[in-house]
């Protein structure tokens, strides 16, 4: 029936509008819900989310050892040539030659934080860091060397 | 000359000036705007005379209604932003003559009547009295014109709906804009058979 449909329309419309207003009103009277971070003021206490991608880092343990074998899987995975790996040949105690990492060059200015290198790494040697304050005065400072000086590959990582 | 007279002459000057601009402007939209200012000036005169109700109605009907409609129709016209060509000399002369004749005629009438200035009783009619008079059936009641005008407006409204309404055929075509073709037989054999049968049917021949 026409009148019944008409009134049902009005009832449903009003109800849905009130539902929306209830939600915004709920937020209006509860300032605790505010999610704004007042960034430069709260720099000391600011905690970034774990999944935030700020830059690629290579974790080193206490003995200055990393897990990179120099396989260049990350270099191949990178869509815009952000990573350049320079390898060298170590002599193992058995007298064999073995490929190892010399320098992990990372161009931050080219990186889009896609995370494909981290996914490609077979030994989990690199991961995404949470630092986002990257501004510098000279572009050349954005080209970084990720492995610490004098570091070597951890024992048992192949 | 007191403040009231100064205000009267200011309003009149405004009214006449904008009226003159409305008829002499060569851009049609500007003409409409000057017409609007003229009508606002008339409303201002009503307010000056303390007949507030008439002033408000003047604004609602003429300014808010009619001029807005005129402006809308100008918006929908082609090339309404262009400057119009200068009118012919003959036309200008005759329109000036017509205006002068109208002025002389009405001046003649008014001067014959001989208004006397009476400032003794302020002209004040309450709105409820206007309403009562409008619907009263006594000797000075306006119920008949009121009803006739309302019938006219009702007829205009019905006419608008009739013009705007879709006929059933138009509604159908609005739902299905492309007429659906009868399905063509895909198979070639079928096609041949159908054409042959069509030829053989006596109605087709």
């Amino acid at each position, binding site marked *: 029936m026409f009148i019944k449909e008409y009134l049902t329309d009005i009832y449903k419309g009003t109800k849905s509008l009130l539902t929306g*207003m209830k939600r*915004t*009103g709920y937020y209006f009277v509860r300032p605790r819900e505010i999610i704004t971070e007042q960034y430069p003021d709260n720099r000391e206490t600011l905690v970034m989310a774990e999944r935030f991608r700020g830059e690629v880092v290579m974790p080193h343990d206490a003995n200055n050892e990393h897990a990179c074998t120099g396989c260049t899987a990350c270099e191949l995975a990178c869509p815009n040539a952000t990573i350049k790996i320079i390898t060298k040949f170590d002599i193992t105690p058995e007298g064999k030659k073995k490929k190892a990492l010399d320098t992990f060059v990372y161009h931050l200015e080219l990186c889009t934080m896609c995370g494909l290198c981290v996914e490609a790494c077979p030994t989990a040697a690199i991961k995404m860091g949470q630092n986002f304050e990257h501004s510098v005065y000279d572009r050349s400072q954005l080209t970084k060397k990720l492995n610490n000086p004098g570091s070597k590959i951890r024992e048992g990582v192949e | 000359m*007191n403040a009231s007279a100064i205000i009267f002459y200011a309003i009149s000057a405004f009214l006449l000036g904008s009226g003159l601009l409305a008829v002499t402007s060569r851009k049609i939209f500007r003409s409409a705007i000057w017409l609007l200012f003229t009508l606002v000036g008339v409303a201002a005169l009503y307010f000056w005379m303390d007949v507030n109700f008439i002033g408000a109605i003047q*604004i609602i009907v003429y*300014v808010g209604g009619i001029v807005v409609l005129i*402006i809308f129709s100008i918006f929908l016209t082609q090339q309404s932003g262009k400057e119009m060509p200068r009118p012919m000399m003959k036309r200008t002369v005759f329109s000036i003559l017509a205006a002068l004749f109208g002025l002389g005629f009405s001046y003649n009438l008014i001067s014959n009547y001989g208004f006397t200035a009476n400032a003794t009783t302020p002209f004040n009619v309450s*709105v409820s009295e206007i309403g009562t008079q409008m619907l009263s059936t006594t000797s000075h009641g306006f119920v008949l014109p009121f009803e006739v005008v309302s019938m006219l407006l009702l007829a205009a409204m019905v006419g608008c709906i009739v013009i705007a309404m879709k006929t059933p055929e138009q509604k159908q075509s609005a739902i299905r804009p492309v007429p659906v073709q009868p399905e063509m037989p895909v198979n070639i054999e079928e096609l041949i058979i159908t054409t042959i049968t069509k030829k053989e049917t006596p109605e087709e021949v």
Partner: protein
Amino acid sequence: MFSLEGITKSLQDWLYLNFNPTWALVIECLIVIVLAIALFAFLGLVLVLMERKVAAHMQIRLGPNRVGPKGMFQTAADTLKLIMKEGLTPDGADKFLFNLAPFVVMIVAMLILAPIAFAKGFQIWDINIGVLYVSAISSLSVIGILMAGWASNNKYSLLGAMRSGAQIVSYELSAGISILCIVVLSGSLSINEIIASQQNGWWLFKGHIPVIIAFVIFMIAVTAETNRAPFDLAEAESELTAGFHTEYSGMKFALFFLAEYINIFIVCAIGATLFLGGWMPFHIGNWQDFNHIMDYIPSSIWFFGKTFFLIFLIMWFRWTFPRLRVDQLLNLEWKYLLPISLFNLLLVTVIAIFGWHF
């Protein structure tokens, strides 16, 4: 008790004692002009800040909080910026009308201010057809918008102006009819008499459900008339870039912006006067003691409190609802609001004739 009535009366007496009537009138006019402009500037600053703060809190944000304590001077800084900006006039525009339009919008907003009663006995012009005057003048505000849209020589502006025109012309009807409901109940068009008729309770509570329906329709219609979201098709940012004021910059833009907020204030003041009793304190029937306590709160605070409550309501609409399409907008008016308000007016008339209201 604190009252503005005494101040205005003694000022008028003093003026008429010391000057002849013409000069007294001129001086009074000057005082009114200064007060009105001061009110406009104050409202512009406060309402813009209020809007931004309300919007922020409804969207779980903080809003402006850098200029001054809690961002209180943000709008002042914005105004300063707009004053210093260049007021561009586009090359293909109709220069005269382009520059006239913001002033038309502003003058219309000023004219509607005249019959509003801000406090007991504090009113610019006690006109006997107050409500009719307001609805007449508010129909003028569309002219400024149409003028701006045409003179800009810009397709977005023209589209915005036409949408705005269609919208204002249609929503005026249901706003007018819901105003009529109160006129029928109180039996007068004068703002003062309408307020006086709410001595024993506001119409919203006295008039049963029909008046509540009229109030809801009035709020919806005036939201549309002031071109605010969810009815802001005339200046839809995402499709028309800014509608009729796309081409405006600097102070001319600021005038449009200011006029929008002044119009919100005015329609909310009218709503508060008609449905919530204007400056009339909250009275309940014959509870003399209760009414007496309420009278101790000054009438101007009652008026501004109610008005700002309604403004908050309109802001709440804006930051909750998505924008309507043109066909939805016209459907809402012609298929829902207008029939309902006509039927509602009938109900209110029956109530008024039989005296069923409290």
